[in-house]
């Protein structure tokens, strides 16, 4: 026979962002550590070898930090002016950096003075990187050129001057030792092959290019500039795959997650957005206090470091699961009996006789089942339900009203109980999802307790508060309607040009009506 049907609690869509795998993953970081640098942080680079120290370029210094250290473990400070783009070599032993004077310096991680200095750029070299054969360095500078340098001989190999504006970003291919990409303020991204004299490919980004990134596969190129992040298929000759416009200020830096599944972009609008590289939808975003200039992810996404214009370095470390395991697990003795026979693997010829599933009813359902309406209402007015899941309280009230026993349940309450009811009402009566039910409840309460009004100062005060809240809401709704009316008028004037008149048919029955576009 049909069993008791529990009260249906209407689920309301949760406001705010939905919890997905991504939000869980990207929320799994500890509270950030803030490190103050001397100037705007223009580059952060992680050492590719453990322990994954990172080099931070800010102002005229390059600081090397250990993963959990808040103080630099090493500093390169022999720059006259600003240093740029300190980048590790693949083996983590060498570091290269550009400078405002235009020279490119190569450092040994252990040493202090520069091993090599490459002179040739006439203006600030903003971007430097090692090619993947480890023996060459490419650099891009504000003198519109990009050059290739040979480390052993510390000489210039080739210079490209195809860009017509500052070269501010670039990267090298991990697969091909001869391939590198530069992005410039002339709105183009150029792909160069060190073996040829000219660029291999030119891509029109449409805005000054602030950052470029090659996918590990080398097939896809991401460029950022203006508000746009664009993904290009370079194997198809620079075919635009997707254009993302999720920031509302210039995008300054790009970064890939260690798995290559997520793309991160930082922007002057103080947000870091995380995109899925399959759907190119934003799956998560971080907020920061200031405009973001640089961004780096440690291997395995262990740390997110963001450098900002105000010179603050924001370091987030990933939380680790072992913290949870430290909490001693409480083992109930009944557990063994509970799982007894559960892990029995049925044989092929066994017959299943399933036990009838017992429905566990909530307390209020049990009370409703036995028609104890007042107690059921009491049960849902208890603090955890009333405060955290008001929808259950309201659902039970609605159920009582459906059963025609709401009045009985509300009546006969003492000062304290009435107080809780009224507090609940004042808090939720104006919420659109609860209003139809709660207005009904409020009317009933007023009807029931009208005769005893004035006997308790506390209750009277709460009635006054309820009245206040409702009056406020009425005013508010009135204002909203006014605004709506004004907007309607505006829309009507905007769309009046679009009114189309249909072809007139010369019969008496079908008549021509102008399209009502106001709906």
């Amino acid at each position: 026979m049909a069993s008791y049907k529990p009260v249906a609690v209407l689920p309301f869509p949760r406001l705010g962002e939905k919890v997905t795998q991504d939000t869980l993953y990207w929320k799994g970081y500890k509270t950030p550590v803030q490190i103050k640098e001397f100037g705007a942080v223009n580059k952060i680079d992680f050492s590719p070898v453990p322990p994954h120290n990172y080099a931070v370029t800010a102002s005229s210094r390059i600081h090397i930090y250990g993963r959990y250290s808040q103080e630099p473990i090493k500093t390169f400070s022999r720059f006259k002016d600003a240093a740029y783009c300190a980048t590790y070599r693949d083996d983590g032993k060498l570091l290269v950096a550009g400078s405002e004077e235009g020279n490119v310096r190569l450092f040994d991680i252990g040493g202090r003075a520069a091993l090599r200095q490459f002179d040739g750029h006439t203006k600030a070299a903003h971007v430097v990187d090692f090619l993947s054969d480890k023996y060459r360095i490419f650099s891009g500078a504000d003198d519109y050129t990009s050059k290739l340098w040979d480390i052993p001989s510390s000489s210039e190999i080739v210079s490209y001057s195809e860009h017509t504006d500052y070269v501010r970003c670039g990267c090298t291919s991990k697969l091909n030792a001869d391939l590198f990409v530069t992005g410039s303020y002339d709105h183009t991204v150029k792909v160069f092959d060190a073996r040829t004299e000219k660029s291999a490919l030119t891509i029109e980004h449409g805005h000054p290019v602030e950052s470029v990134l090659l996918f590990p596969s080398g097939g896809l190129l991401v460029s950022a500039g203006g508000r746009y992040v664009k993904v290009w298929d370079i194997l198809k000759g620079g075919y635009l795959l997707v254009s993302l416009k999720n920031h509302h200020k210039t995008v300054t830096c790009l970064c890939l997650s260690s798995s290559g599944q997520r793309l991160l972009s930082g922007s002057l609008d103080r947000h870091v957005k995380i995109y899925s590289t399959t759907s190119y939808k934003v799956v998560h975003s971080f907020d920061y206090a200031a405009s973001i200039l640089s961004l780096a992810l440690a291997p395995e996404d262990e740390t997110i470091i963001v450098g900002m214009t105000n010179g603050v370095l924001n370091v987030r470390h990933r939380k680790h699961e072992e913290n949870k395991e430290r909490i001693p697990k409480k083992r109930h003795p009944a557990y063994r009996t509970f799982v007894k026979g559960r892990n029995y693997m049925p044989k092929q010829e066994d017959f299943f006789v399933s036990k009838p599933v017992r429905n566990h009813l909530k307390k209020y359902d049990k009370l409703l089942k036995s028609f104890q309406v007042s107690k059921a209402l009491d049960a849902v007015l208890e603090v955890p339900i009333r405060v955290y899941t008001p929808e259950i309280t309201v659902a039970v009230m609605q159920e009582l009203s459906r059963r025609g026993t709401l009045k009985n349940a509300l009546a006969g309450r003492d000062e304290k109980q009435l107080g809780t009811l009224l507090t609940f009402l004042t808090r939720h009566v104006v919420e659109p999802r609860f209003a139809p039910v709660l207005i009904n409840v409020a009317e009933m309460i007023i009807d029931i307790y009208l005769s005893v009004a004035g006997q308790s100062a506390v209750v009277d005060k709460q009635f006054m508060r309820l009245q206040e809240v409702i009056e406020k809401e009425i005013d508010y709704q009135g204002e909203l309607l006014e605004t709506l009316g004004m907007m309607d008028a505006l829309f009507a004037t905007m769309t009046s040009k679009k009114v189309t008149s249909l072809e007139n048919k010369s019969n008496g029955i079908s008549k021509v009506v102008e399209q009502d576009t106001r709906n």
Partner: protein
Amino acid sequence: MVVQEQLRVVRCGGSKLNGSRAVFSADAKYLLCASGDYVKVYSTATEECIHILQGHTNLVTGIQLNPQNHLQTFVVGYKIFAFYSLAGSDDSGFVIIPKNNEEASDSFQLVLVRLTKAPGQEVETKELSLILDDIDHSPKCTAFGREGEYVASVRGLHLSVYFFKKKMTHRFPLSARTVKGANNYFTCVACHPKEDCIASGHKDGKIRLWRNFTHNKEYTFSAMHWHHNAVMDLAFTVEGTNLLSGGLESVLVQWRDGSESKKEFLPRLGSTIEHISVSPDGTLCCTSHAENKITIIQSNLRVSAVIQGLVKGSSVKTGLVVDPRTKALVLNGKPGHLQFFCLQSDKQLYNLDIVQQEYIHQAGLSQTDLVKAAFSAQGNWLATVEQRQEKESDLELQMKLWAYDEQMQSFKLNTRINMPHEDHLTALCFRDTDGVEDGIPTLVTAAKDGRFKVWVFMDESDTDKQSVGWICDFVGSYHNYQANNCCFSEDGSLLAVSFEEIVTVWDSETWDLKCTFCHPPGKIWSLCFGRLICSKYLLGTTDHGFLCCWNLLSCALEWSAQLGVIVLQPDPLSENIAAVSCISEDSDLFVFRPNEPRPLCIQRKVCRGKVQCAVFIPRNVPEAVGSEKYQWLSRSQLYFLTAMQELMTFSTKSPEVRLTPSSKQLAVEESLPMTPFYLLLGKHREQQQLKKDADIGKAVVHSHSAQSSPAVKELLHTPAHVLPSAAFLCSTFINTLLISKENKSNGEVADEVEMESEKAEDESDEDIDHTATEEDPKLTELWGEMTPKLSKSQEKELRKIRKTDYSWISAL
């Protein structure tokens, strides 16, 4: 010879089962219940209708087992309101008839009739002697006491007891109102089978137990109160230890030893209990419910079977809908449910709980009603709308979208939309997306708030949102007129929405208004597009009775006719459209094609009053209809619901043909549960029986019966928990079913065939041929050689061959 076919309106299915108390047969294996003009006999174990007793031409009002002969029942029809027979007197019975035999009379009397023992079915009697006058006509209000010593009858505020021995009547009055505002009116009465005790049920839910009523003054009664609404029926169990009562609460209450404290409940039986009856052997009792249901309950208050007919509510708000998947008729069932009713088998397939709320059985409560239901063209989606309105101001509306789940073979809730519109919904329809490439399921709802909304199914399960549900895609309105109806064209490219007097046609791709039609001054009520070759027409009816047909190509009115059409229903399989008009008292049916000036068929006076709704249901197999005029009936059948909530259809067949003996095949002997095992064994036994009958007088009788085989015996007598696995026993069991070698004359060949067919079922047809060809030459050879005279042994052998039963092949 061609017989002129006649179109007749026939009642189909879903007759009432709860008109009177159902009666158990003496062994409690069958349940007899009055169903319209028939008496249906159900098996209490299988819930199947075993056969139908016919004979009455009007409503059957009562059934009574003959106390002398357990195999005989008395069945009484209309005008006799109740019949009682007593164990002591085999030649007399008691009936309740109207006073002075007038139909209009309001008072009834209980009379004694002498029953003559006539050989025929019907009993005619002339001798009447009055027992009690001025009684209630309901059979529940009169009851016979212990061994027929007295009869108790209640009416209004009086209990009258007539003692046969003393030939005198005692009347016990109750006051109309007591201090507490109780309502003392009697509703039913029951007598204790062993003691002098009368139980009476009252309007306020009290049950009174009367004792010592042989004295007019010193009678006593005790009251028991649990029901909060009127007690609908009372029944004592066979021994009289328990009293069963039921009412609107739909809870069966069992009072032990007549004491108020010892009571047990069987709650949530579905709807109002109208009748309770107890089986003579005391093992079962049954309750008849308002929703056309009989529940058979074991003595330990456990439901053992439910016999469910077509649920007929007070109004069918959803109209008649067809489930495209099962071709079942779908309409409102019990409160908050949608019932799927199979018209072919006259049986409810299942109930779908739409509202999913605990139903409170209490008078005067405004319940959540299911008001709309629609299926998508393939039956993958079901949209339902439920509403509850207590006061003018607060309306609760919910639209639910159900997806068909192949695994569960049922509909599963997908999306619940709270308040889809601000006012009552007037229509909803799905867009037919068969022909469209990757068509997104689309639903349109029209409502009194002057808007129509387009809902589309969004499958975002591949993205991170993981949401699979319906969202609103477009909201349209037309000068804030109320939207009355909506309808998609057959290919789904156009949507017609009627706004009061105006029909608007929208492009379903861009949701642009394409054109408008109207036929002043009437408001448009129903709308439908023509189908197939008539797809360029749009039809509508106005409340002034006009049926209008607009041509969508020329945007002009093609034709209109003032017929007073109230129902317009297109046939999904052809261009035909059925219109039911009601100008005077009777409804007329017109079947027409929009492109033809002359209707295909006109049938006047299909029923009295207005037809509520109608629907075409596609036939499983097209029916051969001889007459050109009724060709429209060949592919689908038109069903309609009359004002009296009766389900009717049209048929050209004569009444004799219609009554197919489909019910007869279910006459299961011994009414055992029909398990596959039973079928296998039972069939075999049947064959054996037949064979034995045929072999009577013959020398050779099968000595080898499956039953007597030790393997089967072992199988049947070993407790189930010590048996080896079924897979292990299977081969031995199958072997016992085979006809053994010794009985075969042409042993080897047939044996081989047996082995083969055992391996592969689908080869069995071939095998039959094979054996036949193998046998035939032998037979002819035999005949040819010894035509004049055969030796006795040869003759025997020959007979054996002929008698060998090969039907086991088909059994496999």
